[in-house]
């Protein structure tokens, strides 16, 4: 089973936005994603591209039963939208919205930690894609292909580069997750999902040097047996302590390196 999103995921859009947003929605629909509803007060019609509009997440939850939500409202409203989705019990909430006020995030993290019923990816996530099943987010679909590598990344274009290199080298992806760098689920939280996923044979992690949670990954990997891990950390100049993680230094060779390691 792919993790977090798959063919049967029912996706809610919280905020479509203008022209660019409609284009992104259209891309998701064209990819085959099952978008079941939209909550966006800027649209007063009944639907956008055939997707019904609801006035609140609560109403959408009752009538369309979404289990994944993509938050893409402007940053002043993002924490509120995330909390609204959490309050309705949506299991997986992906925030493409970015630059959230830090005090807002403190409250978001507190609520998620207290209720423990939803998972938050982002803020500043590029989305989640399970190739040929569902694409929830702004990433271009054609660069991904189905296969055995899971990906967790805090950066968007860098992830596209990596996915495209893998696809061109003939190694596909199980699921690719954008986690941003403003909070929400950490590398470790999501690594354990891939660890349990039978389709995933190895995991590629992409981070920026200043990201939180890099050291936790290194010590997590030391604790016991795990699937092969590949790690590229942009901006890292000092060498790594010894570990069994494959540290990628040349970003132009991600595809080859991932493809060549025996799984």
């Amino acid at each position: 089973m792919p993790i977090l999103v798959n063919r049967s995921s029912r996706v809610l859009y919280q905020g479509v936005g203008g022209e660019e947003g409609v284009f992104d929605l259209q891309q998701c629909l064209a990819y085959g994603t099952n978008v079941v509803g939209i909550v966006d007060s800027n649209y007063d019609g009944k639907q956008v591209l055939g997707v019904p509009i609801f006035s609140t997440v609560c109403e959408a939850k009752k009538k369309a039963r979404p289990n994944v939500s993509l938050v893409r409202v402007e940053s002043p409203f993002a924490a509120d939208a995330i909390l609204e989705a959490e309050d309705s019990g949506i299991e997986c909430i992906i925030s493409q919205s970015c630059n959230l006020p830090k005090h807002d995030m403190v409250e978001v993290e507190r609520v998620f930690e207290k209720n423990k019923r939803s998972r938050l990816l982002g803020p500043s996530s590029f989305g989640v894609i399970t190739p040929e099943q569902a694409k929830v987010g702004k990433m271009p679909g054609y660069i991904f292909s189905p296969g055995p590598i899971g990906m967790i990344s805090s950066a968007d274009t860098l992830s596209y580069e990596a996915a495209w290199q893998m696809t061109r080298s003939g190694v596909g992806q199980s699921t690719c997750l954008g986690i941003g760098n403003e909070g929400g689920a950490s590398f470790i939280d999501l690594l354990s999902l891939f660890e349990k996923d039978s389709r995933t044979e190895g995991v590629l992690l992409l981070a920026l040097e200043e990201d939180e949670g890099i050291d936790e990954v290194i010590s997590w990997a030391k604790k016991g047996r795990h699937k092969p891990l590949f790690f590229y950390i942009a901006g890292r100049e000092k060498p790594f302590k010894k570990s069994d993680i494959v540290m990628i230094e040349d970003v132009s060779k991600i595809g080859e390196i991932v493809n060549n390691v025996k799984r």
Partner: protein
Amino acid sequence: MYLPEHQVYALLRRFGVPTPAYHLIKQFDKESLLSGLSFERAFLKVRLYEGEEREVHEVASREEALAIVEQVFATNPSPAEVLIVPAISLEKRYYLALSILKKRGVELVASVDDGLSLSEREKEHRLFREGVESRRLHPFQIRRLLSRLGITKDRERIGKSIERIVAAFFYFDATFLEIAPFGCTEDGNFVALSVHMEIDENARFRQKEIFRLARKRPEEMVLGGNIGCMANGNGLSRATCDLVRRSGKVPSSPVSVERNIESIVQGLERLDQEAGVEKIFINLFTGLFDCKTIATAIKKWVKSKKAHKPMVIRLEGTSATKACALLKKLSKDIVATTSLKEAVEEL
């Protein structure tokens, strides 16, 4: 964003936190300064507009203060600001700071200021921490804090001030607030003597008034790179610099552009002007965005120039091959390719 200290005083005063009297000097005028200043001992806090660097001088007389002020304004061509805070003798000095810790929320740290460094006090377990939930400290937390700090006199009044400091921290979207020291004067007055506050830039939309006063932290520019780097997205920019470094060259501060033509042309212009940059490396992964649009914009820019620095351009995304063909034809000083590996070899 950080605020000038006297602005932080003003914000804290709005919440009823006592702050010291001060003189703010923006230009040197000996006569009016002599008539306007009155103090014996004081702290002079000199701040240059450009940059965050702050010097603190302790002076024992007005004359000594004036000499420093005169020198500051004479030697700094850029505008400067001198804050004179007359010394207050504190019976005891305390340290208090609030900050946001990811996952753990907001935390208050306090200790008795005994002259040791914070890390030394930490080692001796004399930094006291309280988590702040629901935007306030519970009364029991304040009582506990006061007891740990050994405050026995005026507990109610000092407790109230701590409560107000916490309220101000949340109200103004601060990410960091440090009061070092705060203390009680001999006549029993509590005062926040030296303050530092950082405001969250992401909260600009609800702190408009503060952002008119705030100063941007100077951007850290690493100059001296010989390869000018541009890429879309922060992660890819950093990765592009890594590649340049691996090839034995030195990257410039990367220009991170968005999916829009204007920012790409502006970035190009900046790198072309930047001293020390010998070659420009553009690495764009555009996805669904049509690379031909970018190629056309670069072409227009090149045509508008008599000469420009050599460029290595790597484009990947919709119509990348066609876009590269268009760029290659443009000049022998331009290498264009869809392959990242090939691009790096050309640097």
